[in-house]
């Protein structure tokens, strides 16, 4: 790789530098119109020594293949590989096929940092699609900023962050939460809420936003708020407390293995979610998680996210079919998987808009990029590198799918540092 980026550089360096400005401009126009019609020379689209040759561009995929997080991250890896394959089938990016280098974060944050650095420093990848937990993103963030890499991060998360080196393709907390709460208050007449979560930053921040919105904006009441350690498997006591408080809504942000325990025990304790007394609303259970929980155990719960597999539009139908075709008929697709799928496409669009693989140009080109072919419909990158997207409410059915019962009319604006919610 190291030889490639220097290929043909020495003599024509000056001339190339002079040409770059105009070439980029021209290419940008071309890219918007005809896409991959032409293959610009490597020296022009790659001035910073990335792993780009005349026919190949290398990118990184960085997720946990092993360890506890492999459960969640597998879907993202599959989606990213699908997107890369589809892009390659269409002719690649600026005429170059995408090759990916996959690294295992092993559910261990320092390993994520180590592998991120390896991808950027040794492999000189043009972009990295990866990370899942906030902790892994926090661990790699300084690496991406120091070595100037591009990270496409797929998970819905707590916000409170905005890095020029990251495109957040999942929703930040306010996007995900507020519309759902408005809906449940208006449509279901909910008055009291019980907030519950696994004990770490995302559920806590999300519940903080939820509480502010419930109390300050909706004028309703939070009757309880609790956190359980990650991996906790015994929820009978909290279920008793919930029964005592009789909230209208249980707002649950439980994750991982705890999820399965929570919903199984909730059902066994006689809380029939289909009766909606209380109603269960979650932002942490995608179709992926339901496979572990069992559709019959969560039937009747509501989830607020930007994507459900059952979304009825052509983009999504194609995507679901392609995904199953590649990975198997029994695959299910959750919100994060779809967001991960958007990563390579958004990067491709940015590269083509910038007419270059250079990180700085991609950073600059990214805001405003639209994806009309996204399975969730339409997304656009905001100035703050998050996505404008719609928020939907899904109603869990016993077959493990959500039925979409509501979607916001407008795209929700991403607001990672929400005023009044801190």
């Amino acid at each position, binding site marked *: 790789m190291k030889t490639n980026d220097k290929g043909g550089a020495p003599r024509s360096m000056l001339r190339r530098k002079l040409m770059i400005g105009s070439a980029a401009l021209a290419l940008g126009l071309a890219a918007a119109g005809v896409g991959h019609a032409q293959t610009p020379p490597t020296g022009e689209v790659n001035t910073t020594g990335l792993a780009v040759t005349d026919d190949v561009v290398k990118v990184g995929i960085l997720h946990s*293949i*092993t360890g506890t997080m492999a459960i969640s991250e597998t879907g993202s890896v599959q989606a990213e590989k699908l997107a890369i394959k589809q892009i390659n089938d269409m002719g690649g990016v600026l005429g170059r096929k995408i090759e990916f280098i*996959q*690294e*295992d974060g*092993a559910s*261990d*944050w*320092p*390993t994520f*940092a*180590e592998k991120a*650095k*390896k991808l950027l*420093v*040794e492999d000189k990848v043009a972009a990295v699609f990866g990370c899942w*937990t*906030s*902790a892994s993103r*926090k*661990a790699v*963030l*300084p690496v991406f900023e*120091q070595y100037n890499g591009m990270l496409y991060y797929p998970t819905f998360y*707590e916000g*409170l962050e905005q890095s020029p080196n990251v495109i957040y393709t999942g929703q930040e907390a306010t996007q995900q939460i507020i519309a759902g709460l408005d809906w449940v208050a208006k449509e279901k007449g909910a008055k009291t809420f019980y907030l519950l979560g696994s*004990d*770490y*930053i995302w559920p*806590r*921040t999300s519940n*903080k936003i939820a509480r502010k919105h419930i109390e300050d904006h909706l004028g309703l009441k939070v009757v309880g708020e609790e*956190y359980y*350690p*990650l991996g906790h498997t015994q929820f009978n006591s909290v279920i008793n407390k919930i029964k005592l408080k009789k909230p209208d809504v249980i707002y649950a942000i439980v994750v991982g293995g705890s999820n399965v325990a929570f919903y199984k025990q909730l059902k066994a304790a006689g809380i029939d979610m289909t009766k909606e007394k209380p109603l269960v609303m979650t932002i942490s259970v995608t179709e992926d998680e339901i496979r572990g929980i069992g559709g019959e155990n969560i039937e009747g719960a509501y989830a607020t996210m930007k994507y459900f597999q059952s979304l009825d539009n052509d983009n999504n139908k194609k995507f679901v079919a392609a995904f199953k075709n590649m990975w198997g008929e029994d695959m299910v697709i959750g919100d994060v998987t779809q967001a991960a799928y958007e990563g390579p496409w958004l990067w491709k669009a940015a590269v083509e808009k910038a007419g270059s693989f250079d990180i700085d140009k991609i950073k600059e080109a990214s805001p405003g990029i639209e994806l009309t072919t996204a399975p969730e419909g339409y997304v656009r990158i905001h100035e703050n590198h998050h996505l404008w997207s719609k928020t939907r409410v899904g109603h869990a059915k016993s077959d493990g799918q959500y039925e979409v019962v509501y979607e916001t009319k407008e795209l929700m604006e991403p607001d990672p*540092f929400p005023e009044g919610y*801190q």
Partner: protein
Amino acid sequence: MTPPFHAARKTELFGFLVLAAFVLLVLPGVVDPFRLNLVGKYLTYAFVAVGLVLCWGSAGILSLGQGIFFGLGGYCMAMFLKLEASTPEATKIQSTPGIPDFMDWNQLTALPAFWEPFHSLAFTIVAIVAVPAALAFVIGFAMFTRRVGGVYFAIITQAIAAILTILIIGQQGYTGGVNGITDLRTLLGWDIRTDSAKTILYFVNAFLLLGVIALSIAVRSSKLGRILVALRDKEDRVRFSGYDVAAFKIFVFCFAAAISGIGGAMFTLQVGFMSPSFVGIVPSIEMVIFCAVGGRNSLIGAVYGTLLVNWGKTTFSESFPELWLFAMGGLFIAVVMAFPNGLAGIYKSYVQPLFARIVVRPAHRRRPVGGGKTTPAIAE
């Protein structure tokens, strides 16, 4: 009447010099800066492995919670660095500027009292060693004076590691929670993220490690070292020779904890963050395997063991991530079943004799006379 300890000491000294040359000259010479930084990270684990050689190899005390001490040392360093990074200017978008970002996210409005002293580097440096040692003292005092040892001690330390992890994760307003303390930038204004800084830190780390090993060699070749070995073999005999056995065990446990703390602090400096994933059960046991692969009785071997396993982990997981766990699991079993003395054992039984035959041909060769009876003492 010179006891054969001299010969053993000579081998140890030789091994030490080779190791010093390896980490100070060879590695920086042949490895690119990126990989050197990785090696630097691995070498911080070697502090723990060296501590385990003293504890486990010498004294027979197996702690499955050494990650606690590594983590505590690392957190002390991280707290200092985080405070330095959290100037009011750098954090002015927070509702309470001047405190670390994660505190602000958790609605803390003032710096907790136990963070205050970590504004001072001097205090931090003392704490890096003292905090792990103090906790080790409490644990050791409770366990050893009541004669808890063996497997039981191992699982109690493990339970403590698990509890501490839950505590740190649960108290995220004070500790940074599961994310840990991240985004550390400078040490007294010196940017620790640059390549040159990383190279300097590598050498600081290497010198500290060599210093710790030298100190450990001194400890082991003192009478205390022999008492530890004696105590591993026949604890009662030592006790009834007039020694307060618990005090010796507490000492070596605290010593191992203190050097693990140094390793943790160096980790934080080189990697730029500290997270509770180091305090838990898994890393603690992995560190035992570094030590076991190197040879549980060999201080020098511990370093090679650490490097080998981590190098294996990195390369293996780059090409076959799925297979890595099989390899790691197999390594645990192999080291226990087939090579209980690890690399050092292999070196001693295969390489050293070969070496001796080729190089030290003349006088020194000692052939046992009269059967196996006078086999010279093997260096421990």
